[in-house]
């Protein structure tokens, strides 16, 4: 690595990568790429850049292993530093994420708590039940005409439930710390198979630790009468209501309603979709026993905005992502998965890849933290020098220098990033009102082409996209012009908060604020205007007076021009910025089945082996077993007779390679063809089984059912 690491070269050598590729069975690869070592094959044939080849084939571990091939002291040090840097960076990001999510959820938690406390105080004041009454088996006679269980529906606003499992867990902890008894049930407790006994048992097991196994609800009443439990509400959290069996849940609710007069029970249910969901799931009789209330969790978009702000825009760790990666993550979030969980895991993957692939990535923390500057000195010189071979440096023609110049470059980078993020936040502050998402603005603002176009053309950014729709930045600027005058002071205040490090902008914002405070309709005099903006272009465009809105818009426009320099335009950005979108893509999305099918049918394209280089439509015994099997299966309809299939497979692979025949399998006569078994029968059978299993794993086959044990079914034709 230290020998000739030019920047375009991947850090790991191709040979090492191919060696490790077979051991490199990540979960993604197992599912999407059933052929062992296929990633390597695919890549070599796909004719893309060499960079991609090795990256897709090497996991962090293998990359590190391959790094060690040239035995060099500096390399080992570097490796250690990078690992350390990754751990520190990720722990920082991780804690930031947790904090952000906690803050968002805290609102809801407090609201839930308030709801419980309000209702509980009403219950306590209206009912004075003695302990002995609670333990009576018969219902208490009250004036209440119907017994209803207080139920809060928490709308999670996301079809996917993964993100919210943790939220409900935290909610339980939060309520527990506020003197509530909490039991969390899930969809698995409400199965039709176990009936109502399942959920009552699970409830009792969580609350009454030393209960016998009889799930009698009266146990709960006796337990509640114990001194340490008495007079605290019992909260039942059902995190995913929609996965429960409606009948069982309904029965459970009616059961609770029999006890609700005696024991203060509250239900909190998570609903993923709409208000209709409980109505559809539960019978009207069960609904009758609920005293509902609707609470809403922060939508995924809101959470995403907060996360992007905390992690990417205001870099908490020094690590950042390039435009391409940002666009990929955005598309992945919107079009595929839509969960924060997968977004975070993608980010983690990007982070780990960055530190394992970029030799200088350990400088990342140094860029972020001023106190860590001295780490540069500990750094081996030769490695440091490679920084000047980074493409960004070559582009800017920064010549090889000493460590100090790198330090300067990095601090410049940091400064650039800081001002960039301030402007992005200002843009988001204005775009927020028209439901703009921070991730969208982030993607656009990090586009390296944005800067070039706005610099070279010199026309207002609003016209940047010309024919197409206006970009988000342009929209945000335009939005300022339309902003009601009452809202403007607030927006300006937010701007000044975001731009607090930049004095010249702060001054202008302050001047605008004072204008609003003093001026009545926001009309300004020409003289003031010229003081602030020395650009005659605008003067010509405006005639004399300019409204505050226009002025604010121009200020924003000015900020965008001056400070919105994407990080990818700066030298040394490769050190802190992850840009290999292909890695993420292959790891997260994988190939579609169609590609797998095409690959299976034409393995020659990837293998480029000498033995079957000829006509592509010929099945040759030297091909991979799975490929042969798939090829043969093309002759069948929906179902494949296993026996026939096996016979043809046997014939195919036992024929010597020189006599590659055309389409032997479609003639029934081929079955009777007697070939002397060159291979052991057992071995052929095992190869056959393995190939069938692989086809099943790829999702192209369904195994024989009990009803038709001799047939396998083909699935996903052409998909």
């Amino acid at each position, binding site marked *: 690595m230290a020998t000739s690491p030019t920047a375009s070269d991947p850090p790991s050598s191709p040979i090492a990568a191919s060696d490790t590729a077979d051991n490199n069975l990540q979960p993604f690869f197992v599912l999407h790429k059933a052929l062992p070592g296929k990633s390597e094959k695919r890549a070599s044939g796909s004719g893309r850049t060499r960079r991609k080849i090795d990256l897709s084939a090497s996991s962090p571990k293998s990359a590190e292993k391959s790094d060690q091939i040239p035995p060099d002291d500096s390399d080992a040090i570097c490796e250690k530093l990078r690992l350390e840097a990754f751990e520190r960076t990720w722990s920082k990001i991780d804690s930031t994420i947790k904090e952000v999510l906690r803050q968002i959820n805290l609102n809801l938690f407090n609201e839930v708590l308030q709801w419980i406390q309000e209702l509980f105080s009403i219950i306590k004041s209206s009912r004075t039940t003695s302990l002995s009454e609670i333990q*009576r088996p018969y219902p208490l006679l009250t004036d209440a*005409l*119907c017994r209803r269980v207080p139920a809060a529906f928490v709308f999670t606003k996301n079809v996917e439930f993964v993100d919210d499992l943790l939220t409900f867990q935290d909610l339980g902890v939060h309520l527990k710390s506020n003197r509530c008894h909490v039991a969390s049930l899930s969809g698995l407790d409400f199965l039709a198979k176990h009936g109502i006994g399942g959920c009552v048992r699970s409830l009792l097991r969580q609350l009454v630790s030393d209960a016998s196994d009889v799930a009698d609800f009266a146990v709960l009443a006796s337990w509640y009468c114990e*001194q340490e439990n008495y007079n605290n509400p019992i909260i039942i959290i059902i995190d995913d209501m929609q996965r429960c069996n409606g009948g069982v849940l309904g029965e459970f609710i009616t059961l609770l309603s029999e006890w609700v007069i005696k024991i203060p029970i509250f239900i909190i249910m998570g609903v993923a979709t709409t208000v209709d969901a409980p109505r559809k799931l539960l019978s009207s009789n069960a609904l009758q026993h609920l005293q509902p209330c609707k609470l809403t969790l922060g939508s995924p978009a809101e959470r995403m905005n907060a996360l992007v702000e905390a992690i990417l825009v205001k870099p908490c760790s020094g690590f950042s992502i390039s435009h391409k990666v940002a666009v990929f993550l955005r598309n992945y979030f919107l079009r595929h998965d839509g969960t924060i969980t997968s977004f975070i895991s993608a980010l983690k993957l990007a982070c780990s890849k960055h530190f394992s692939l970029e030799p200088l990535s350990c400088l990342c923390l140094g860029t972020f933290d001023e106190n860590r500057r001295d780490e540069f000195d500990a750094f081996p010189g030769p490695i440091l020098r490679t920084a000047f071979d980074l493409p960004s440096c070559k582009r800017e023609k920064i010549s090889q220098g000493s460590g100090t110049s790198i330090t300067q470059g990095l601090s410049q980078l940091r400064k650039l990033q800081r001002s960039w993020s301030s402007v992005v936040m200002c843009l988001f502050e204005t775009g927020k009102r028209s439901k703009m998402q921070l991730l969208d603005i982030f993607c656009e603002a990090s586009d390296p082409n944005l800067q070039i176009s706005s610099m070279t053309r010199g026309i207002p950014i609003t016209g940047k996209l010309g024919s197409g729709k206006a970009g988000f930045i342009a929209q945000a600027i335009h939005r300022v012009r339309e902003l009601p005058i009452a809202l403007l002071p607030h927006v300006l205040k937010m701007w000044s908060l975001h731009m607090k490090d930049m004095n010249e902008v702060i001054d202008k914002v302050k001047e605008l604020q004072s204008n609003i405070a003093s001026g009545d309709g926001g009309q300004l005099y020409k003289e003031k205007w010229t003081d602030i903006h020395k650009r005659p272009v605008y003067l010509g465009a405006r005639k004399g007076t300019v409204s505050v809105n226009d002025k604010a818009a121009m200020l924003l426009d000015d900020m965008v021009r001056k400070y919105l320099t994407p990080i990818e335009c700066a030298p040394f950005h490769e050190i802190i910025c992850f840009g290999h979108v292909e890695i993420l*893509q292959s790891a997260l999305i994988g190939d579609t089945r169609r590609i797998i099918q095409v690959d299976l049918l034409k393995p020659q394209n990837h293998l480029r082996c000498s033995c079957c280089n000829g006509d592509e439509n010929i099945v040759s015994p030297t091909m991979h077993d799975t490929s042969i099997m798939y090829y043969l299966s093309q002759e069948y309809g929906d179902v494949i007779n296993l026996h026939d299939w096996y016979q043809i497979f046997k014939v195919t692979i036992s024929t010597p390679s020189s006599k590659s025949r055309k389409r032997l399998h479609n003639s029934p006569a081929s079955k009777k063809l007697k070939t002397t078994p060159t291979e052991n029968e057992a071995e052929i059978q095992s190869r056959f089984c393995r190939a069938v299993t692989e086809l099943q794993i790829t999702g192209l086959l369904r195994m024989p059912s*009990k009803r038709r044990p001799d047939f396998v079914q083909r699935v996903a034709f052409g998909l």
Partner: protein
Amino acid sequence: MANEETKTLDSTPRRTTRSSSSSLSLSSPQKPSLNPPNPPPPSLPTDLLFSAQPITLDQLLSNLPGRNPQILEVLRLIGPLNSPTQPILLYGGVSTGKTSTILQVFRYLNRPFVYASCRSCYNPRILFESVLNQLLRHRRSRSSGFASSKRCERASEFVDLLRDALLRVLNELKERRGGKGGNGEMVYVIFDNVELIRSWDKSSLILCLLFRLFDILKIPELGLIYISSSTPDAYYSMTGSIGPNAVHFPEYTLNDLHGIFMRNQENPKLYSSFLSVVLKPFSRVTKRVDELATAFESLFRKYCEPLTDLKLFPDERMKRRLFDYIQPHLTASLNETFDVPVRSSSESAKDGDYTKKGSIRKTVGGNDSLAELDFHMSVSAKYLLLSAFLASRNPATLDAALFDSTGGSSSRKRKRKSSQASIDQNDHKAEEILIKGPGTFPLERLLAIFQCITSLSEEALEEEQLQEGKGIENATVGLMSDVLLQLSTLCNANFLCKSGSCPLDGSRRYRSTIDEDFALKVARSINFPLSKYIYRR
């Protein structure tokens, strides 16, 4: 017998050798420990009696408006203390006052009774143990692991244990009365919600046991009362013995309902004027007290909204004004069975929601269909949902025509085909589809449709993105991968349901449960021309 009694008194665990396989029978009866919060175990009579102060007959009759004939009938059937009571079955619809009546009756009679609801006691073991616990006056406590007094799982055990316990209780009662004598003693057992037993395992066995308990035990001092919401015929076939005396609890009349709702009102005049508005239309829909109470609770709050002083007596003019105010809410609330009020901390949001609700009510859901999808769903999940909707909605035979590669020409093709005969046939088919509801489909068909509609839209999307100048990286982000993951997501959200396997090939079939409005909403959010693909006659 005496031997048995001492055994139970000493509270030695009476282990049943065969059935008690687990170590759990160790959680055997113990003397209830005297925990500080628990009051000391009360003496016998108060423990089995109703806890509140007894009431007079007049109070009893006035407490339960509209149930006077039933109360008198029950009292007649229960009879005096010194004569045996034949089993009684109280039956009638849900929320007709069966349980309250019998409990109030016992409060008036002040006689010992045992109550077991088959809803709380949802399996035989819990039912048996609950009855025994009460008779033995066992109190669960932490020290005994909240266990029951006896472990009793089988019906035969139950009969034995019940007989022992009953005799013990009766003996104690007699001792307590001491010299008075002559009057006789009775213990009553009430089984509530008996109709639920029918859905248990071995339901006929348990029902048979419960209804023949009187004949089996042959203890004249035992009175049995069953409460059921289904008619007595439901149990005849199962018992094989003389049916219990049945008392029917009919639905409340309008006057009864008025009487019930007028109890304990702070401002009777105001509430009476409110009832005169709402009771009649609502009672045409339902006469269940609990349903009406829920509906009236929120409506009355609405009704009082324009009033500043809740204590004033409304005159005619004000009544009319209040009626005008409540009128629009009335019809909406008649159609609404389940209303989820929003709770939000910010007042402004609350207000906004109220105004929105009002407008929705006026147009009866007209706004609803225009509203946007208010939860997050990834684009590929949306496409999958739409394809599932189409697969459920359209007949499979038309897939080829609808999802032709040429796309637009499909409608022309269909037109050409339709002769008069085929139109009739299609009419018939459409009717059939309507009756059958959403159809089922195999996974393969869903994926095929999904591929068709995504490939079309991806083309459009790519063009759009090329215009925007960032098509390169987006084009490769296909929608197809992870389809099966999305499928399970949709199943979890109850948008799709798995419905049995196909009888021929044994593969799993799915069915979409969403309605057209929702599908259109989803389609609108991704600009998909759904209506083009829906098969209509």
